[in-house]
């Protein structure tokens, strides 16, 4: 790398060559090594991801069959299926969406639009920040005590309803944060215009702020639900079963979900069960991919409109 010092220079006093020995070539070599290290780190993370996905595809694609999708679990891997698990996941997701959407959006509205920075609002904020960092299995313990034991008569004990309530509490902080960010992104000029026309706070929110922030809120809810769909530990703790040879007959019914079914099969020693576990994972990943794609599409449309 030629630099200026390589060619003789007339006239001016230069810094004494003995005083400064910049060793540029060595520094550039270190630069290159450092850059390679950062590329390598990123590459390792991405390659492991690729390895995992290829592994799941390789092992699971062969076992992915109509039988798998429509059967109940069985002691024989060739007859086992995820039907009950899919039904359980479907029920849980439906209820979680129904519960978490209003409560999460309502809390977000409260903190962002109604609160006027009182001590109460600050207290709620601190709570939510803390809750976001609590391990999911602790929510399971809460669900066990609150919904299975204390409220067991109303929730049916170890039922879909209990599972849905527990997961709702788990993902509420995510929805609240997403709601607040979407509301904050609405320009204040929009609100001012609403107030100027004589609307009160709720009218401005309902007619102007919420519609403008709705795509962002929806994106956040979908991402929160996609987190819930993969949750295993809290549901195990509240008593979701691992072997469910029946379809749930309502929200008060015992159940299992897809991740727990996968867990059950992975725990078995036989390779055939491992393969159908991989197939189950494929189904789970496809569902997640769909949900995230919808969320990303929504987000980009939202950004375009702005």
């Amino acid at each position, binding site marked *: *790398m*030629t630099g200026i010092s390589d*060619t003789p220079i007339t*006239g*001016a006093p230069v810094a004494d060559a003995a*005083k*400064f020995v910049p060793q540029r070539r060595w520094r550039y070599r270190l630069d290159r090594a450092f850059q390679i290290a950062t590329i390598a780190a990123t590459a390792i993370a991405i390659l492991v991801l690729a390895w995992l996905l290829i592994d799941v595809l390789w092992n699971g694609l062969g076992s992915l069959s109509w039988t798998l999708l429509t059967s109940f679990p069985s002691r024989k891997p060739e007859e086992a299926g995820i039907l009950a698990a899919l039904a359980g996941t479907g029920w849980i997701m439906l209820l979680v969406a129904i519960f978490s959407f209003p409560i999460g959006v309502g809390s977000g509205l409260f903190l962002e639009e109604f609160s006027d920075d009182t001590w109460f609002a600050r207290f709620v904020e601190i709570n939510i920040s803390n809750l976001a960092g609590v391990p999911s299995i602790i929510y399971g313990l809460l669900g066990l005590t609150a919904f299975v034991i204390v409220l067991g008569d109303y929730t049916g004990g170890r039922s879909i309803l209990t599972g849905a309530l527990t997961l709702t509490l788990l993902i509420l902080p995510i929805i609240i944060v997403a709601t607040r960010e979407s509301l904050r992104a609405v320009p204040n000029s929009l609100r001012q215009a609403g107030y100027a026309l004589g609307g009160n706070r709720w009218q401005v929110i309902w007619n102007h702020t919420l519609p403008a922030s709705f795509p962002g809120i929806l994106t956040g809810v979908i991402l929160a639900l996609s987190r819930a769909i993969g949750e295993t530990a809290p549901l195990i703790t509240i008593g979701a079963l691992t072997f469910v040879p029946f379809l749930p007959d309502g929200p008060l019914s015992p159940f299992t979900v897809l991740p727990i079914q996968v867990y059950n099969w992975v725990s078995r020693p036989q390779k055939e069960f491992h393969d159908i576990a991989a197939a189950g994972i494929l189904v789970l990943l496809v569902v997640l991919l769909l949900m995230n794609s919808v969320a990303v599409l929504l987000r980009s449309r939202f950004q375009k409109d702005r």
Partner: protein
Amino acid sequence: MQGISSPTKTDVAISVEQLNVYYGSNLAVRDVYLDVPRHQIAAFIGPSGCGKSTVLRCLNRMNDLIASARVEGNIFFEGQNIYPAGEAAKKFDPVELRRRVGMVFQKPNPFPKSIYENVAWGARINGYKGNMDELVERSLRGAAIWDEVKDKLKQSGLSISGGQQQRLCIARAIAIEPEVILMDEPCSALDPISTLKIEELMSSLKEKFTIVIVTHNMQQASRVSDRTAFFNAEATDAGGKVGYLVEYDDTEVIFGNPKEKYTRDYVSGRFG
């Protein structure tokens, strides 16, 4: 190229020829010719947006850090073209240039390190072989801040006042013994007392260094500089504006008896 007079070539530290700077497809500054004489202070003045800082940043190739910036023309530092054409362009190393052409910025930007480390770090990476304590003290004295910080060398560089931080930045710039120091509006973020201190400092600095300073403050330029370049901007057909050099001469001429009308209007306060 009216209104530009240059000193004799052998006394010139930096020579700018036919400089055009583009940001993306917009021409920001056009047709700059000037010679910066050694051991003198050259000031760039003019209303904002005329490309003074842009030209300054070309002198140590700091514009390389801006992705959309493109420089055409030649700039000679001690006789060597720092914007060579063709093959040599790819191999040009700005790192060495920047050790010899230092820069002080508009907003003081000391590192989140101790005062000692702020001064020593630049010297260290450039392979300083001598006594570091001595160098740090010498540089802080040269920036007229030694007495104020000599008891708190281990404290963070951010713990001192704005004016002191700027002098710390000057100290770290002179620690690596450059030949030229570029100053981009060094006093505009400071209070009047700190400004005065730094202006006094500049007069002593030019004994060892060549200084080029961009300033919004005309009075400062007339107080401090030996030669002054007046930049202005004109509207382009595309609706933007492009900066250009109006007049470059000894300071007494620019402020006392300028040759160009725009110069006369600007220094007499009629615009800008």
